[in-house]
């Protein structure tokens, strides 16, 4: 036991002495969470729109005021003719141009209808869709108000949409679970595989093997420090997302932490497995990044929904552990469901862990090759 503790102490010294390791352990998760939270936000805020008003009456004034006071849009330049539309969009600052036809207000009152056109910048498809959706909604709202005040109110069926669990459709709700999932597999798999292959590369493994340390002691000694620090990471990410983005944990915190521990353990055992099959650090890094990180980002359902993937990718994603953890963590954090709803995914993660540990112990060589 004393031997083992000595080994664990040495691992902690390695970690705390190496600035790069500390940055990967604590700097990257914090940076990721903030980055994803703020920058990769899909919410619309203060997008600039330009107006080409060929009518210039009370009605067009009202509509443009409504658009610009919504908080989603900001008034950009005022255009004078159609030739300016192209120029405005090319400038990249203007996300959309709103064009009112001639005699807009008069036509609307006398004929009951008038034309508005929205010209969006299609070179950014997501932004364009978002912008036009928001603009259409605002104009529809104006329509309803107008209909309500006038006597000739037509019967309108208005669907009332409510978003459960994430009423304001905040992007962070989506990203925080995803980032936790990815960061954990990055830190755990990458770091443990590096730390073991480093011993091989520096020749210290030779002496460790000649020592009376058992393989299980070497493996556990490598795992325990990273297990503890990764757990600190999870708590740090949860705290950050709660304090900065106001993202609450709806379900049981204890259950969430317990599931995180399982996931960390599984990622660590995959890291060890990687280290037993790679003979140097480059190889370990390559396998961790290309073999684990990339498919996890693309196929775990973090960014692209699994349901929309071609069938083959769906099968590949079935063997990626992050896919299951994302389901678990979203359920617990956002929907607030209990263990009964995630037991299947939990069981799958347990199987992954057991297989990885079993293979690692079997692959761990008590001799050199």
């Amino acid at each position, binding site marked *: 036991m004393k031997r083992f503790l000595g080994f664990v102490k040495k691992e902690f010294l390695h970690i705390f002495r190496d600035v790069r390791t500390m940055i990967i352990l604590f700097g990257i998760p914090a940076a990721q969470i903030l980055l994803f939270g703020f920058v990769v936000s899909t919410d619309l805020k203060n997008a600039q729109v330009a107006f080409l008003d060929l009518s210039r009456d009370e009605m067009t004034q009202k509509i443009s005021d409504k658009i610009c006071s919504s908080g989603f849009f900001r008034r950009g330049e005022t255009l004078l003719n159609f030739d300016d539309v192209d120029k405005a969009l090319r400038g990249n600052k203007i996300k959309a141009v709103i064009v009112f036809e001639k005699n807009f207000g008069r036509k609307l009152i006398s004929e009951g209808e008038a034309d508005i056109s929205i010209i969006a910048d299609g070179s950014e498809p997501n932004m364009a869709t978002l912008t036009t959706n928001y603009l259409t909604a605002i104009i529809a709202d104006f329509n309803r108000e107008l209909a309500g005040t006038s006597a000739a109110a037509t019967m309108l069926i208005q669907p009332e949409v409510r978003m459960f669990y994430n009423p304001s459709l905040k992007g962070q709700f989506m990203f925080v679970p995803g980032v936790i999932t990815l960061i954990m597999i990055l830190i755990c798999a990458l770091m443990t595989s590096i730390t073991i292959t480093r011993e091989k590369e520096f020749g210290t493994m030779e002496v460790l093997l000649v*020592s009376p340390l058992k393989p299980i002691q070497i493996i556990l000694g490598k795992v325990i420090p990273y297990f503890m620090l990764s757990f600190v990471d999870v708590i740090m990410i949860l705290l950050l997302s709660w304090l900065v983005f106001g993202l609450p944990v709806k379900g049981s915190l204890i259950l969430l932490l317990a599931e995180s521990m399982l996931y960390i353990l599984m990622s660590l055992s995959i890291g060890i497995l990687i280290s037993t099959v790679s003979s140097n650090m480059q190889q370990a890094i390559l396998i961790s990044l290309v073999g684990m990180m990339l498919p996890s980002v693309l196929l775990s359902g973090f960014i692209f929904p699994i349901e929309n993937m071609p069938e083959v990718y769906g099968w590949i994603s079935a063997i990626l552990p992050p896919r299951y953890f994302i389901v678990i963590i979203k359920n617990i954090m956002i929907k607030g469901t209990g263990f009964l709803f995630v037991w299947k995914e939990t069981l799958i993660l347990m199987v992954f862990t057991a297989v990885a540990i079993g293979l690692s112990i079997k692959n761990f060589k008590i001799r050199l090759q």
Partner: protein
Amino acid sequence: MKKVVESSGLCKRFGGTEALKSISFGVNENEIFGFIGPDGAGKTTLFRIITTLLLPDEGELKVLGLDCKTGFKELRRNIGYMPGRFSLYQDLSVEENLSFYATVFGTTVKENYDLISDIYSHIEPFKKRLAGKLSGGMKQKLALSCALIHKPALLVLDEPTTGVDAVSRSEFWEMLRKLRHHNITIIVSTPYMDEAMRCDRVALIQEGQILSVDRPETIRDGFSRKLFSIKAPEKHKLINALRSCPGISSVYPFGDSVHVTFKDDNFDNAIYEYLENSGISDVSISETRAGIEDRFLELMGTHLH
């Protein structure tokens, strides 16, 4: 005398290449046993088999009375091993490295301090320094301290003096000699011929085969020819001239002179004339005693032909 290591017919192959071809030797208790040979001779492979890091393909090997295949757990407790690359943690301090190896082997620095005090006292003033920042000589002393800290019965040192300055090398051998008072048998490999003289017995090894095992003096005496040392200011020119001289059978550079043997061991005065004609002046020739290197080169020659 009790044998600490006994090997017979040891073979090891890596893919198609034979690293060891039927190696047999014995190491006595309490001796310093040296393996001398060029790079790639198979020294490291042999040491890895002795330290249970590799399994032999064929042959028997008993270390400390235990079979190297079945007794590896017990053996690993009693062997001190210093690999060719100093196995130190560069980001740990001198002190931390030493106490780590002590705990891993289930002991403390205090317990066996007397064993390493001679060596460790040289680096103790720097005990807070990171191992990566030590000089080659200090790294070597620390690695030796780490390998000794659990008082092993057998110490295996793989090229411990490679890349270390001459003064440290000399100090290092002094330390090894002192260790014999502690009942520690030492197996050491080196590419330096001059270090061979400091071993009790040496094995000359080349291409996976042992050419000769004996006391260094006896190996020197095994040189079968009359050896002459020739000196001239232009050494390079001298060697070329000697190599093409018909009466000479072998030419090897040795320090600032050239060692040659004559066909039928007859020193021929015509050599002076021959060298003069070749444009080499100020030649001095004297008979000399063969060094271990001469014997090694002779053995290699007979072995290859």
